[in-house]
Each structure stands twice: as C-alpha cells, then as structure tokens.
C-alpha cells in the first residue's frame, strides 16, 4: 500500500493537536445550521463557535457536508 508524506503529516498533526474538549459529529451537526448562517452573514463563526470550527477541521465527513450546505445557501441567497 502507499502512504504518502502528506497523509502521514496530516495524521501526526491530527494526533498532536488532539484536545480533550472536542465535540462529536452529532453535536457538530446540531449546531451546523447556526454556524453556516453566521458564515453567510460575514460574522466570525470560528470565534463564536470554536468547537464546531475545530470539529470541521478534523472531520472530513462533516467538513464536506458543511461546504456543500454553504454552496447551496450561497447560491439560493
């Protein structure tokens, strides 16, 4: 199998930046509509909801859903 440098670096970074207060996917999903509306309004969503921001940086599934939702809402605005 192949393991490229970027994948390994990303995994190591994921391990060493682990924090005890991370939220899970369910909690992130619950708050995602509020988070995405703050983004759309040009507010600092990352500062207001840091645990959601942190989860989105770590979880590709949730990040993908967030970005797709943002794209939909931007287009419909």
């Amino acid at each position, binding site marked *: 199998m192949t393991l490229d440098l970027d994948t390994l670096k990303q995994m190591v970074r*994921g391990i060493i930046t682990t924090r005890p207060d991370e939220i899970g*996917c369910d909690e992130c999903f619950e708050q995602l*509509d509020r988070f995405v509306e703050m983004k759309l309004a040009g507010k600092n969503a990352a500062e207001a909801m840091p645990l959601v921001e942190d989860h989105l940086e770590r979880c590709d599934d949730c990040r993908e859903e967030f970005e797709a939702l943002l794209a939909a809402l931007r287009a419909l605005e």
Partner: protein
Amino acid sequence: MIERTNQEWLTALRGPGRDGALADLRALLVRGLRYALASWSVVDEAILEDFAQDALLKILAGLDSFRGESRFTTWAQKIAVHVALTELRRHRWRDVSLDEMTGSLDAEPSTALRRGPSTGSGHRFIPDTLADPSAGPEQQAIQRMLLNTLRRIISTELTDRQRQALVAAYIHGMPLEEVARRMGTNRNALYKLLHDARQRLKKRMMAEGLSPQDMLAAFGS
C-alpha cells in the same frame, strides 16, 4: 414560492392543507442540492428528486427537534445535504471492504517511501524514514524518532478496533460514515473512538519525551 417565517413553515407543514408547503420545500431542496452536489458527476435530476424526497420524510419526522436557532429552510437544507452525501458516499465506497483495506497493514510499503529493515512487529505502514525533501538533517532525525515511536505505540497502545478505524480513516481516507457502517457502529461513535485513540497516542508520545512543539516542527507543514 411564498416567503414564510419559521413559525409559518411549521404551522403549514403540520396543518391539514400542507401540500403547498411540501411542494415549496421540495422544490427548494432540489434547487439547493443542485448546487451542493455540483461536483458529483453521478448526480442527475432524478437522483436530486429522490434525495429531496428522502430528506422531506426525515424533515417531517423531525419537525419537533427544530429548535429555531436558524432559519427553518437552512435547517431543512442541512438535513437534505446530509441525506444526499450519506447516500453518495455509500455508493462511491460500495465495493471497498474494510478487511481488505486494513489487511494491507503488513503489505509491502510503497517504494515512494524509503525504509530500513523491519523493526518490531506489524503496522509497517508507518515507514522508518521519510523521503522528505523539505526536511534538514536535524528535522529528519526528529521525524525518524517520531515515526519509530508512533509505529511502536500504535501496536501497543491501541485496541484492534482503534487501529482498524485509524488505518481506514486516516491512512485510506475512507469516510467515517463508511468505516462506521462496516464496523457496526455510527459516525459519531466512531469519531469518539478515534478521538480516544488520538488522545492515547498523544499522551504516550509526550510521556516518551516528544513535545508537541518538536513534533509540530518536524511535521508542521
């Protein structure tokens, strides 16, 4: 489409004559999904309609859980995106078996990564050395030490399930949802399992004298 407040949406969707509201919401979800899924070439109009229909059922079943913290339509679109991407991921990864994937843990490593003779048992997906052109000699020494430690503690500190999830998700980039399905759990629980694994690895690395600063310096960019 009629503009509705959150309360008007809820009232309309719960009321006897909800057909108009349902049709409006379905149309809105389809339009949103068209943009949300623009990068998925397998998605056509019929699939969009199916996703919107599945989402509508979930939305109606979950109306009581809407807490009014956003616009109702944002909340509904969030559910539609989740429904659609869950299905698309399932389709994209349908032929991939977790056993085959994680069974390759002990397979021969890529030639892209130089590695020395095998040290210790198992988990050879972590190479001994990295062909990292951007690293100087000192940084490479730290990388080597870190990789040795990482390989050892992945073997000794993690449970089989944690190891399997870590390899599938972090090494192979399989969506958590898909790893979870194959491991008989759900995405949230799998995230927590991986979080516990990361915490364990981090704690152990620090106990072995590898500071986060050193590690970030070695693998920072």
